[in-house]
């Protein structure tokens, strides 16, 4: 049984159907990548899985338990963590406080080891512990967002376009880190426009088109698929 099962998911904004009939299984310790054009419904899917949006129909099962009706904060406590599009840094809190927020769900304990792990992955954050989140540069904010999500020690980490707006150097770094996190045992569901690199690290990948899944396969399969190349990867 898969760790995270998304089944026949449909989400609407008002009358607008943003995604429908989405079914994805994510196995433990996998990296699964969602790709698709703008407005295909990737973010919507991620938000529905993390509980920020309500599924209209369909179900989301986590470790065999149906979490479809759970609120966002309850899902976090179960072990599903999202790094949202746009990072969602608390601008008026320091780096340290932002990281603290990551442990909010862990009833009271603030294990130092979690900080150590994050600081090890992102030494930059250690340097800037006292800086306000809002004044960090884009790349640093992205690190902070990922680090914060890791503080909760999630079983599944959802990443929505972590490379957006980052300089090329950083993008490579971010992908390396994703691989490392995954190697440490965290399951990753990743949304990326940077399809080439994303597919390169993906165990499996899905293509979303106009709110529907049109293709699934291993990362390599999709990389080699000629239509995918034409539409998403460029010549």
């Amino acid at each position: 049984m898969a760790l995270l099962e998304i089944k026949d998911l449909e989400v609407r904004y008002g009358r607008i159907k943003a995604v429908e009939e989405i079914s994805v299984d994510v196995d433990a310790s996998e990296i699964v990548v969602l790709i698709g054009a703008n407005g295909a419904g990737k973010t919507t899917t991620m938000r529905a899985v993390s509980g920020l949006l309500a599924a209209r129909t369909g179900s989301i099962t986590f470790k065999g338990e149906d979490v479809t009706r759970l609120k966002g904060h309850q899902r976090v406590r179960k072990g599903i963590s999202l790094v949202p599009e746009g990072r969602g840094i608390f601008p008026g809190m320091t780096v340290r406080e932002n990281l603290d927020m990551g442990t909010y769900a862990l009833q009271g304990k603030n294990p130092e080891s979690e900080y150590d792990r994050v600081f090890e992955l992102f030494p930059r954050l250690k340097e800037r512990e006292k800086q306000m989140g809002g004044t960090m540069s884009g790349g640093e904010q992205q690190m902070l967002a990922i680090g914060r999500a890791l503080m909760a020690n999630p079983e599944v980490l959802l990443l929505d376009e972590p490379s957006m707006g980052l300089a090329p150097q950083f993008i490579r770094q971010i992908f390396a880190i994703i691989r490392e996190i995954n190697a440490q045992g965290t399951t990753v569901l990743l949304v990326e426009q940077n399809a080439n690199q994303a597919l390169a690290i993906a165990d499996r990948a899905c293509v979303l088109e106009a709110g529907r899944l049109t293709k699934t396969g291993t990362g390599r399969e999709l990389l080699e698929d000629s239509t995918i190349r034409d539409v998403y990867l460029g010549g």
Partner: protein
Amino acid sequence: MSAHSPLSSVGAKQAEAYGKLGHQRPNWYLRMKSWWNDRSRWQQWLILLIVVVLAYLLPVINPPLITTEPSNDFAISCFNMALYGLVALGLNVVVGQAGLLDLGYIGFFAVGAYTASLWTSPDSPLVHIPYLWTLPLAMIVTVVFGIALGIPTLRLRGDYLAIVTLGFGEIIRLLATIVPVLKGNTGFQNVGRPPGEIDGAPIFSASNGLPWYWFTVTFIVIVMILLGNLERSRVGRAWFAIREDEDAAEIMGVPTFRFKLAAFGTGAALGGLSGALLAGQVGFVNNQKFDVPTSILFLAAVILGGQGNKLGVVIGGAIVAYVPLRFTALGGWKFLIFGIVLVLLMIFRSQGLFGKKPKLLTYTARIRRKVKKEGPPGDDEGTPPKTAPRRGGAA
């Protein structure tokens, strides 16, 4: 909408809200709208004409059940409704069109009323002029007040502007009490009225609401036409853009401050006009009722009718004026019920009864038809078109 970072951007939240609003729009509304759009231009005009004539005849028809009698004279009630309609029309320019939250609109209303009294009432030491002259005068004076208030404060954002305007309204009310010339609670008696007599009795008298009603409705019609022109012009677009995103508007070359001031001035002028009309009809002005709750009632009228929709807010104003007049017997309960209605309305129809987006361009009919024929359905109410991945673009 920023598809880019829907989490943090205000735009996305708004988009979400609007998306949901669209969802609430009931079927009858859509059906009526499409019916209306299907009429030809002259048919629309004809229907409008009939509506206007009916509006004029309302107090004469004095429909049972609707009438406010026997508690209140219906013609006078109609005048009050029209007056609130005019007030709502003015406030709508500020709140609905330019998106500036004004909780002290009553201040302009008061200034207008006092202008009319000061220049016509025998209780005032100033030179006296015919009442009709005080209407433009009231507008000029309120515009001056509006600009004087606007220049220092229009830089403020949202709620800060709201509290400052509220303070302005209170200052006006308190000054009316404190400054002796304004005669506080004693007030001005025998404020002027338009000329004209029938059988020796003045046409415009305090007890005869009918001429006052017609007079006011005529103003409403004229103002609606002028504001309509304004709406579908550079000015209206600038206001709307400011309401949507002030910074972006400024960067797109809209002199936001000037246009905000213009909105404030226009609103103020209409507030002043309404105040002067009230002063004329009642014939007596004192410092009562220029208070915050009344100001908030004005705002409620705009929201109730549907901010941005001119006809809607006029109806909203009329309703706000009508309810207490019709249900006088209910005493304080009527306000309680009014409050409940406001809450329910906001829950189930937060864009107001007749909320709709104004048209901001004038000569689009031809081109619109052309686009409709060629492109995908461009119905701006119905199901939004699928935002499928666009491949190849316009190529």
